[in-house]
């Protein structure tokens, strides 16, 4: 057997072989008959300032969307609770998309079911699908709670979740005392973060109401605990990091919505449907905690209101704590809520990260950066860029509708940018897509782009290296296992970014073969 035979290439290399290249050439006869020159002209035009202007005038069509829909966020929220089965009320396809989306990001299975509505349901409503679905799902997957969210279809036909679930109980499809929470999450409003928020709020409020308890913040044993909410969190490592920080403080806490167990389960020979998650019994107890710490304040809007309003708790709300300064704020917030001093171990860790910043700064200083992502993540990333001397230039927020309150967010971003001379070049875009980003990258070039895997194509067109941060990251492995929050996270982010810059230098190196950096 020849060597060439033994080495089986995948499609990236296989089809560069001469015979395939020839085949492709032959095929050109079928293609739209335009010359290479015309193609080059069209490409050049799409890169011009003139086209950029036209592109930004575009109202009708979205080209390469940069957000996911509400129910996807709800599925993630549901998976943050012990033995909870996400149930998507709508036609079957959406659920299958959510499962593959989440699975491809985390490289883990995603248990979630659908009520599989069909055209009968479109005419008569989805009640019988809901009732049968709940009965089947409980029998098949044996959850301890079901968390129902809607898709746009159920919303358009106006299904009444609360009534349907009530009827399912009456008919005996599910037991009277079996918890079923629900949230309305149409995908023509909001996005994955809105859906996450709705479901968390629904779970907290419904489990609390069922318990018949009254809220008494700071009362009893629970009154020494802190509630922590991370939000739509694509990094399982961030859960571990926040635990590490809270343990260092030696404070007790309950994480409300912890899907890291589900998305970081061991390969020990037996797959279970449910791993980890917040204990259901801990939810009503959390109403007595001394306060709540929220790490994605724009994501968790409704939930915060609920905790403040109904649980009457003190809430400390931050955006994703990326970088040293944001982590400082996080530690201050914990100190304030718990009355405990910042532990020495964290102080020391901070010093080490500052040292690392200093080591790398020559390579980061003045680097122009494009950022794309969710609102809280972006605030964190901007802060990080400013403190290492990188200059955010294009800032593209994946959310842009009324629900998310883009205006307030934009004001906060602009205020943050104004705190540093490195922020002066930046423009903030809300509700734009990745085709807009492409124009931006081509017309006003940057050194680096930071964003999800979807940004890859725009970045490639513009010849800009992409640092993958956020959701979804499909085309890289295990990024989500390394935390990006806290001091450790700042170090990880720094390592990731500076090494991409150094890679870039090596790729362009002129032959000196520099080993000293």
């Amino acid at each position, binding site marked *: 057997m020849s060597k060439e*035979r*033994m080495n*089986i290439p995948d*499609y990236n290399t296989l*089809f560069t072989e001469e015979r*395939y290249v020839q085949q492709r050439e032959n*095929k*050109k006869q*079928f*293609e*739209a008959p335009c010359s290479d020159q015309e193609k080059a002209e*069209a490409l050049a035009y799409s890169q011009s300032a003139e086209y950029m202007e036209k592109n930004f005038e575009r109202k*009708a*069509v*979205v*080209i*390469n*969307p940069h957000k*996911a*829909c*509400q129910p*996807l966020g709800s599925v993630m929220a549901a998976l943050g609770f012990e033995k909870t089965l996400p*149930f998507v009320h709508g*036609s079957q*396809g*959406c659920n*299958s998309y*959510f*499962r*593959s989306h989440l699975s491809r990001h985390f*490289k883990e*299975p995603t*248990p*979630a*079911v*659908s*009520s*599989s509505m*069909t*055209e009968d349901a*479109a005419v008569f409503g989805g009640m019988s699908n809901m009732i*049968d679905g709940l*009965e*089947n799902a409980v029998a098949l997957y044996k959850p301890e709670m079901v968390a129902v969210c809607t*898709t*746009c279809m159920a919303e*358009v*036909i106006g299904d009444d979740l609360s009534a349907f679930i009530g009827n399912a109980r009456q008919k005996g499809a599910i037991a009277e005392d079996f918890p079923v929470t629900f949230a309305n999450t*149409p*995908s*023509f*409003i909001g996005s994955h973060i809105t859906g996450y928020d709705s479901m968390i709020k629904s779970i907290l409020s419904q489990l609390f109401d069922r318990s018949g308890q009254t809220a008494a913040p700071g009362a009893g044993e629970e009154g020494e605990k802190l509630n922590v909410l991370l939000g739509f969190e694509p990094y399982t490592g961030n859960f571990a990091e926040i635990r590490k920080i809270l343990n260092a403080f030696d404070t007790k806490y309950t994480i409300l919505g912890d899907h890291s167990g589900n998305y970081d*389960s*061991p*390969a*020990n*020979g037996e*797959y279970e*449907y449910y791993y980890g998650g917040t204990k259901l019994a801990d939810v009503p107890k959390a109403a007595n905690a001394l306060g709540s710490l929220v790490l994605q304040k724009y994501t968790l809007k409704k939930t915060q209101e609920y905790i403040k309003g109904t649980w009457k708790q003190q809430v400390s709300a931050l955006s994703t704590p990326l970088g040293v300064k944001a982590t400082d704020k996080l530690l201050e917030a914990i100190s304030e809520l718990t009355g405990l001093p910042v532990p020495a171990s964290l102080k020391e860790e901070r010093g080490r990260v500052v040292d690392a910043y200093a080591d790398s700064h020559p390579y980061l200083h003045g680097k122009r950066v494009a950022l794309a992502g969710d609102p809280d993540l972006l605030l964190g990333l901007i802060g990080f860029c400013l403190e290492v001397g990188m200059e955010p230039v294009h800032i593209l927020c994946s959310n842009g509708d009324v629900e998310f309150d883009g205006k307030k967010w934009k004001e906060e971003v602009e205020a943050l940018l104004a705190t540093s001379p490195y922020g002066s070049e930046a423009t903030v875009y809300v509700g734009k897509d990745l*085709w807009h980003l492409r124009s931006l990258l081509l017309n006003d070039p940057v050194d680096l782009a930071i964003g999800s895997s979807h940004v890859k194509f725009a970045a490639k067109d513009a010849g800009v290296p992409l640092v993958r941060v956020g959701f979804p990251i499909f085309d890289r492995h295990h990024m989500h296992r390394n935390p990006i929050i806290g001091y450790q996270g700042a170090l990880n982010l720094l390592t990731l970014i500076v090494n991409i810059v150094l890679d870039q230098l090596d790729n362009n190196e002129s032959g000196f073969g520099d080993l000293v950096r």
Partner: protein
Amino acid sequence: MEPIRKEEIDDQACGSLAPKSKPCPRPKPGEAAGGCSFDGAQITLLPIMDAAHLVHGPVACAGNSWESRGSLSSGPSLSQYGFATDLSNNDIIFGGEKKLKDSIDYIAGRFAPPAIFVYATCVTALIGEDMDAVCKEASDRLGIPVVPVNSPGFVGSKNLGNRLAGDALLQYVIGTGEPELEASMGVNLIGEYNIAGEMWDIEKLMNQAGITLLSRITGDARYKEITWAHRAKANMVVCSRALLGLAKQMESKYGIPYFEGSFYGAKETTYSLRQMAYLLNDREMERRVDRLTEREENRLSHDLRPYRKILKGKKAVLYTGGVKSWSVISALKELGIQVVGVGTNKSSDEDVQRIADRVSDDTEYIPEGGASRIIKTVRERKADIMIAGGRNMYVAMKEQIPFVDINQERHKAYAGYEGLLRLAKELVDSIANPIWKLASSPAPWDKEDSYDR
């Protein structure tokens, strides 16, 4: 949009016109079902690479589906752009037809595609958008075909969506053009989507045998070549029963004979090439095919020897959740692998019959999804490997079961003679990887908890 008639779905389902055939199975509420009809329609049409594909609905349907196919292009990439009308609350109330029209205009003006496919989604079907009318008007005004695809998610499964996409091709595309070349000997491939470039291997074989590939429906296709598909001398339906209806209707409408075949495994490949030459009714071509297939088979069996040694007697559970089941079984059998469990989830009665012809009597049929059901079969039958789609992969990893991805996300082409060799290598690599031993042996401190597979 024109409502989808229920009778039509029920008795023509899965592309079969035969009255007795059972309809595409309905998903059961409360299960983790597969993709919707919208998804299925897109899978069929997205490989038309130079066309624009516009999703009319909230951004979710498009946002969740773009950039997720392993269907490769040898040139144009417009089909990889995620176009969506992005309907929001107001559009749901007041209608999105204006937005649709504007979107079509923008795409036509900026990207100048040879055609635009417009997909209905659950929402646009429910609020009663007249997509057909908007498309027709735009088509007349712009002078390019704007094809409505009426396959909203709720009408049913992915398979049904494949079929509805076939209907759209038949109604709006096929027969609207003429080939420039004198292509009297052409064959169409129907239901081959060029996953991981498989089409290119098939095309190479056809080239070598001197068989003209007239239209690709739709792997790595150009819009234009599909317009003249009605000029073919024969159709091959490449293991996709969902598009069988298309072949049948082309037979009755244009008198084009068809056959169902596959390119998984040497035997099936040889059979398919022979069948083409036979239907083209060309003696000389038949002789050429014989020479080619004999040569390829010999070379393959030589190259496969080391792999066969390792794979012989190994047991596999195959769960592709669809029509691919029977054809892949042949390929595995040629490698000496016994299929001990096979998914029949979306297979029609005829598919199940074909599966039965290819497996031994005690093979277990896995009628419906759910990871635990597949795993159970793997355990009970002591299978060495699981061959399935991406969504089941991560479950296999938890259970420490060697795994090969057979569905649309994969990176390797398994069709044809060389494809079989690649599949063999992939299977051996997966089974032989040292991580399975590491995973299944206990850590040194808890030896007695040893886990025996």
